[in-house]
């Protein structure tokens, strides 16, 4: 029916060590929504960067409108009608919506920008596509959903006929995701052809017409979305049968809370109270999930619990004792374990070995050290690491490999191995699967649930609602630094929780 607008023929991209794309043939038809599904490292982003002119393919050709093209920079791709919305937005925070949209293609004769025309054009464009936006707002004052809208407008302003969206829903709330899907369908109806890169199966099912599955740099298959189930997609993507939702057994939590927070107040770096009046408790043997849109105080809360940020008011009680004035080290030694959201900055010392990373925190005591922490015992560390590498199935050349050489999923397993084997009484887990693929997520989720079943109190902070629902027994909604709603996980759904995540207000209309 439809004719192809974009084709790749035998695209190969060889990096010094990895073959990122191996003989990729795909076709995008005029006016369709195509998904490119694959795990991290499957070569999705590389392929898109080849299409967008950021990378030069090692071999193979790109055919646009039946004509062979060669892009040496994004400029060429833009000129030929390709637009790309990157996963990390390419927007300048301090500039206005208009300035960001026109950047690089400013109207006006001579050196000066014609701001009046620019504003007018942006207004017209946003009205034509039903993407309402204030052209004079600064990017830093916009929500993530609106920022994405600016990114799309930016591509449309350059007359993109083909729009590539890289992990577009990773940062959106459920409401924003639905709005986004509506926008994408609207664009398709206006004749824009769309490629969505994703590792989320729901997304593929919800929006696409057709899907290509990428694994280890090769195309594993091509399906019409209507004819394929989520399970089949997952199996194609991972290359083996995977469990999408880890089985959660019934487990009775104990009564006496292991961790209590009362009326907590925490200031951020600008001295603004970003956690304000927050109270919660966690009992042994339950997972309490904190749902919320990013930037509602999640990181400050986690830092306050671990003593990485001072508390401005309220109390933190572990096993009935106030730990507010304890140092981080003292808290760790009270058997409070922590899996930080940013594993590179806080979870690991990347140039250190796996063994050293596992010993860290307890590096000053037996068996890792002797003589009151004066002498490190490397052979004991190595022995311990070797055991845990096996137990946690960490894929590493060995205990002496630097942590930086491991993949994201395996790095996270190193942190899990360290934190989960210290016999914790309370476990704070923040964004445990961010950026990881289905296989690793499955493993980490089952480990967290195993901790719960051993009567550890788990506080889970996550931006992924799916994760919260998969793991939590109770769900607390965090909004502007306080818990605005509490749910029993089995008695609610994503829509209801999502509603409170945005402050319980009516969603903005598109």
């Amino acid at each position, binding site marked *: 029916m439809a004719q192809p607008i974009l084709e790749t023929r035998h695209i190969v991209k*060889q*990096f*010094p060590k990895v073959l990122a794309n191996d003989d990729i043939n795909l076709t995008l038809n005029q006016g369709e929504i195509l998904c490119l599904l694959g795990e991290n490292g499957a070569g999705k982003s590389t392929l898109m960067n080849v299409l*967008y002119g*950021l990378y030069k393919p090692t071999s193979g050709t790109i055919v646009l409108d039946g004509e062979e093209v060669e892009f040496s920079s994004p400029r060429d791709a833009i000129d030929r009608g390709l637009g790309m919305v990157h996963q990390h937005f390419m927007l*300048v925070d301090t500039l206005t919506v208009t300035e960001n949209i026109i950047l*690089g293609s*400013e109207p006006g004769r001579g050196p000066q920008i014609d701001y009046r025309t620019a504003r007018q054009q942006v207004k017209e464009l946003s009205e034509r596509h039903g993407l309402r936006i204030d052209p004079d707002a600064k990017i830093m004052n916009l929500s993530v959903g609106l920022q994405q809208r600016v990114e799309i407008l930016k591509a449309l302003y350059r007359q993109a006929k083909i729009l590539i969206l890289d992990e577009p829903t990773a940062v959106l709330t459920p409401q924003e995701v639905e709005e986004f899907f509506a926008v994408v369908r609207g664009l398709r109806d206006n004749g824009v052809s769309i490629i969505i890169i994703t590792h989320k199966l729901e997304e593929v099912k919800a929006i696409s017409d057709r899907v290509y599955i990428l694994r280890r740099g090769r195309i594993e298959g091509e399906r019409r979305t209507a004819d394929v189930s989520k399970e089949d997609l997952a199996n194609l993507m991972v290359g083996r049968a995977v469990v999408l939702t880890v089985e959660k057994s019934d487990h009775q939590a104990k009564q006496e809370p292991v961790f209590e927070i009362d009326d907590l107040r925490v200031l951020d770096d600008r001295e603004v109270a970003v956690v304000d009046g927050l109270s919660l408790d966690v009992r042994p043997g339950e997972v309490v999930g904190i749902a919320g849109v990013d930037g509602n105080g999640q990181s400050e809360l986690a830092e306050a619990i671990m003593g990485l940020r001072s508390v401005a008011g309220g109390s933190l009680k572990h096993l009935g004792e106030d730990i507010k004035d304890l140092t981080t080290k003292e808290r760790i030694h009270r058997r409070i374990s922590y899996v930080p959201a940013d594993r590179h900055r806080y979870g690991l010392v990347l140039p250190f070995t796996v063994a050293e990373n596992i010993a860290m925190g307890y590096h000053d005591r037996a068996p890792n050290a002797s003589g009151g922490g004066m002498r490190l015992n490397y052979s004991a560390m190595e022995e311990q690491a070797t055991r845990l590498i096996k137990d946690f199935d960490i894929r590493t050349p060995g205990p002496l490999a630097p942590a930086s050489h491991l993949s994201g999923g395996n790095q996270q397993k190193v942190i899990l191995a360290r934190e989960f084997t210290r016999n914790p009484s309370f476990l704070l887990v923040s964004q445990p699967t961010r950026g990881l693929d289905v296989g690793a997520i499955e493993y980490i989720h089952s480990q967290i649930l195993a901790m719960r079943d051993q009567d550890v109190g788990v506080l889970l902070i996550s931006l992924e609602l799916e994760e919260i629902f998969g793991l939590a027994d109770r769900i607390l909604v965090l909004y502007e630094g306080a818990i605005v709603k509490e749910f029993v996980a089995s008695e609610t759904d994503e829509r209801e929780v999502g509603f409170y995540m945005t402050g319980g207000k009516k969603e903005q209309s598109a």
Partner: protein
Amino acid sequence: MVDYDFIVNLLSAMIRNATPIALAAIGAVVCERSGVVNIAMEGIMTVGAFVAAIVAGATGNPWIGLLAAIFFGGLFSLIHAFATVSLHLDHVVSGAVLNVLALGITSYLMIMIVGHPGTTNPVPVGLGDYRWAIPVLSSIPVLGPMFFNQTPIVYFSFILIGVFTWFLSKTKLGLHVRASGEHPLALETIGVSVYKMRYFGVLVSGLVGGMAGAYLSIESNVSFTEGMTGGRGFIAMAAMISGGWHPIGAFIAALFFGLADALQVRFQVFEIARVPEEFFIILPYVLTVVAVAGLVRRSRPPKADGVDFMIERSED
């Protein structure tokens, strides 16, 4: 003692003292807005001051001296651009090296060209010999002598402050420069070269810094003396920061330092207090520290200022 003439003299001295600082500061503003930290202004000014005196002395024409200073200031700054942008060297390290290099080159060339260290021979005609009183405007009380009865580079600095402000806020290139200092990848992905913008930003600071140097040697003086920049390049950094990385803010901050400088001379002459004169000499520098400490918290640098940018276009 404090009468009309005193005030007028003080204020026009303020403007004169502020000129080299303001020029260096607005040059640094463009440079840092493009994302390159530039602590090499001191060295660039030294090069400009030296070249201006030598060329003006040899040709007998201070205008040629000025052009040469601008040219060599720009050329010298390109070393910084090459080191930081193309070689991805740390910006502060490169800047520090250039400051030392400028001192070394000029003392070496003093011996080679002038034949002795210290001070060059006076230039036959300096730019200070051109004092342009602008008709009508210069006869306004106080403001007239302050702003409209000055020497050439002082006027150039006024013009450049306006031009740079317009450039950064209203032009296409200015928008690209700002984007390059805030979110370089955003600029690169819509097809504008960050490298070019950063080279451009550094070059502007070099050209203007060269002019600031020429002001010191052939406009407010008639010869080049080693060490004559006296830390003004660093005070310009302070002016840039206190002025919030904006040309007009930087100019106002430079005026403040100019005033401190003008005051310290007068304090020394009039012996207002029984304090050793050295105390007054350090006054502008102390004020620099105070101003930066007080204002720095509120002013926000460009987000990618000093952050290296490398295109991941791994060629195989």
